């Protein structure tokens, strides 16, 4: 097991390097200029040249990438071009906020998806199954920024029940476990949970349906196993695949919340990325994508290990 962990951790290094390089190239291929993150738009050519030199943006791209990589390997993610601040404190708080939001969305989406999917799989062809399919398709199809806006209009603007934006009532941006903070997370978490709920529903419906059609289930039924025992067998067989899907979805929740965080002004990595993209703040973009991709790689590793623990066949 330790060898597996070590081997997989080694695999993540080329992945991180490739992601960083790809991201770096993508940002530089796109039109626009990182200097826009620093200078007002009407800056004359001589000022632009001076500032580019001061920030090292006048160096050839491979050199810029090399310098960045060298610093990252020494634990320095660099400074934001737009604010001049060290990137890590901003990224750290943004990651914490996104993690809280993703966890809340997962806590809503995964159990509901599991429940709807399992029931639909167990009652294939029934009205329950059809309702679950509709729910799954709707969950995957509804644009979540649209859903977010609609919920804000209903629950914040019209009913005034829940706040429409921000992560905390005091504006500190630091999350805590009390109703003031919970009320801020309700709408974005529900909005963000809709897609994973749909995907988990769809996946579990297929897995449970397939397992229930397998010979060993017929045998167990024939031997007179009670419903509780049957469910235990289904859960045990479905768990590794379900876990894999949920693990991937949690990764998507971490990296794919840009629109939801923008709609709700949630100060997470999505908002940080959104701002960095529009400002061409390359160091922030690079650092955020690197950390998120590492998180994704780590999550995949954790899921693989959990699968191996649940299913001995996976260890072979």
């Amino acid at each position, binding site marked *: 097991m330790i060898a597996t962990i070590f081997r997989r951790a080694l695999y993540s290094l080329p992945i991180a390097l490739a992601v960083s390089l790809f991201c770096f190239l993508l940002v530089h291929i796109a*039109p*626009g*200029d990182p*200097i*826009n993150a*620093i*200078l*007002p*738009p*009407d*800056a*004359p*050519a001589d*000022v632009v040249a*001076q*500032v580019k030199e*001061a*920030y090292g943006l006048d160096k050839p791209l491979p050199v810029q990438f090399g310098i960045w990589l060298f610093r990252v390997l020494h634990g320095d993610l660099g400074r934001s071009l*737009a*604010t*001049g*601040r*060290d990137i*890590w*404190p*901003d990224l750290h*708080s*943004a990651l914490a906020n996104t993690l809280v939001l993703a966890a809340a969305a997962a806590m809503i989406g995964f159990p509901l998806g599991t429940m709807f999917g399992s029931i639909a799989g167990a009652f294939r062809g029934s009205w329950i199954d059809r309702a679950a399919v509709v729910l799954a398709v709707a969950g995957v199809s509804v644009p979540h920024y649209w859903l977010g*806006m609609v919920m*804000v*209009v209903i629950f*914040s*603007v019209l009913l*005034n029940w829940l*706040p*429409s*934006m*921000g*992560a*905390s*009532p*005091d*504006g*500190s*941006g*630091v*999350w*805590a476990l009390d109703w*003031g*903070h919970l009320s801020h997370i309700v709408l974005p978490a529900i909005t963000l949970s809709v897609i994973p709920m749909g995907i988990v529903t769809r996946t579990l419906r297929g897995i449970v349906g397939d397992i229930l059609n397998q010979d060993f289930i017929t045998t167990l039924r024939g031997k007179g196993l009670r419903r509780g025992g049957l469910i235990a067998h289904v859960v045990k067989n479905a768990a590794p695949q379900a876990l894999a899907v949920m693990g991937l979805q949690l990764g998507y929740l971490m990296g794919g919340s840009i629109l939801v965080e*923008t*709609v709700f*002004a949630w*100060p997470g990595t999505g*908002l*940080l990325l*959104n*701002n960095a993209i*529009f*400002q061409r703040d390359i160091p922030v973009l690079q650092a955020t994508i690197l950390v998120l991709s590492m998180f994704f790689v780590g999550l995949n590793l954790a899921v693989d290990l959990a699968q191996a623990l649940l299913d001995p066949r996976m260890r072979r």
Partner: protein
Amino acid sequence: MTNFHLPRRTLIAGSTALAAMGSIGKVRAAEEHVLRYGMAFADVPLTTGQPNRGAGAYQFTGFTLYDPLVTWEMDISNRPGKLKPGLASSWEVDPADKKNWIFKLRPGVKFHDGSTLTADAVIWNLEKVLNPKAAHFDNAQAAQVKLRLPSVATYAKLDDMTVQITTKAVDALFPYQLLWFFVSSPAQYEKLGGSWEKFGFAPSGTGPFKMGTLVPRTSVELIRNENYWDKSRIPKLDRLILVCIPEDLARTNALLSGQVDLIETPTPDAVPQFTARGMKIVGNVTPHVWNYHLSMLPGSPWLDKRLRQAANLAVDREAIVQLMGGLAKPAFGQMDPSSPWFGKPTFKLRYDMDAARKLMSDAGYSKSNPLKTKFLVATSGAGQMLSMPINEYIQQNYAEIGLQIELMPVELEVLYTAWRKGAGDEIAKGASANNVAYVTSDPFYAIVRFYATKQIAPNGVNWSHYSNPEVDKLCDAITSTFDVAEQDKMLARVHEIIVDDAVQVWVVHDTNPHALSPKVKNYVQAQHWFQDLTTLS
């Protein structure tokens, strides 16, 4: 510059304290006068002295925390403001050498940390942004203000309360440049170990507000400075909390749901909702223009003045104002007619399709034989108003007169890059017009930088490559005339020439709209991007 890391323990302690402050805050709010202001920014503008994020950010972390040597009348809404003494109680040009400007500093001004404003502090601040060899030189601040101080050649302390700044050439407009230059406390910088990053979290200026808690990307708290030197500008509020809400709809919803008390740039289609809830929409003439710069390079169709005039006459500006929910003003030129620099142009910008068709026809174009050209436009962005809907509306207007424009939408940052490089650069991709909307706050920003031949890109932002010897002569005279009335006359003359010449297509002026809940009192909106938040109560 040293790194500023917040240890996890500090963060936890800080968050607990903030959470506690939050609950206490609710009790305190009953006694205190506190307002929450939704800004259209994704991050708090720089708090070290020179705000980033453009002219619109100066009202938030510029004129609140700091003062410039020369400031602006911001408490007047019924006419354009004027320069007035700030940290310099007076200034004059040296009659013997008009490149030398002498600034007498205001006595008794204290920074928030208790240190005193002196000539040494002003020189230290000039070094901070203009001398890369100075130990305390700050790239981030220099990047914001160096281009705003293009005339400065040298500076020197004459005595403890007098500073001399020498310009590269005679420049009568120089005091306008100082509006953008704020003075930070050298003592506080030293106290914080010479770190601008730490200074950003504990800044010290001379302004009417002191800074409380700064949460990057989220909010900043401003606290009344009881000891502010200008007693007429001591804030009425105890605290003002500026909240970052970059997305227009999120900002609008935050006001409608009562999370903030006022916002900038509300969405036009929410205006009926605001008014139905007793909220106020406040706007004013603002030095800004939404326009198309037209290429004057060889081969451009816009070398024909008839086409330029037709393009101006075919824009239904009133309909665009309606599209903006009334949050805009039709443009009759680069300047608003209320400006002393408007003059009396003979070419009247109006919606006259017959006249536009006639001009197109005279130039050899019609609906059956249209002129086809490309316009580089912004998908959206600060200052661009409803960029794509306005562009598409004008595209329809133009189709009616035989002018087929292909819109080339790009991100605003890309448009800015193209703007700096000029019409001849390959980044323009053959476009004959550029759609950057911008600030027109002073003679240089409104006139000189767009029409003087020496400002042709990439030296300046004369994107069009417009060149007119009479305009050049007037621009030179404007910068060497110290009589303000005479300066105004010359600026008006330049404006008459460029409008009569239909150098651009002028569409609308932004009114810099704000939406205010009934709780907000005494909001005075100056005819500028610079606003005074001390009047709020």
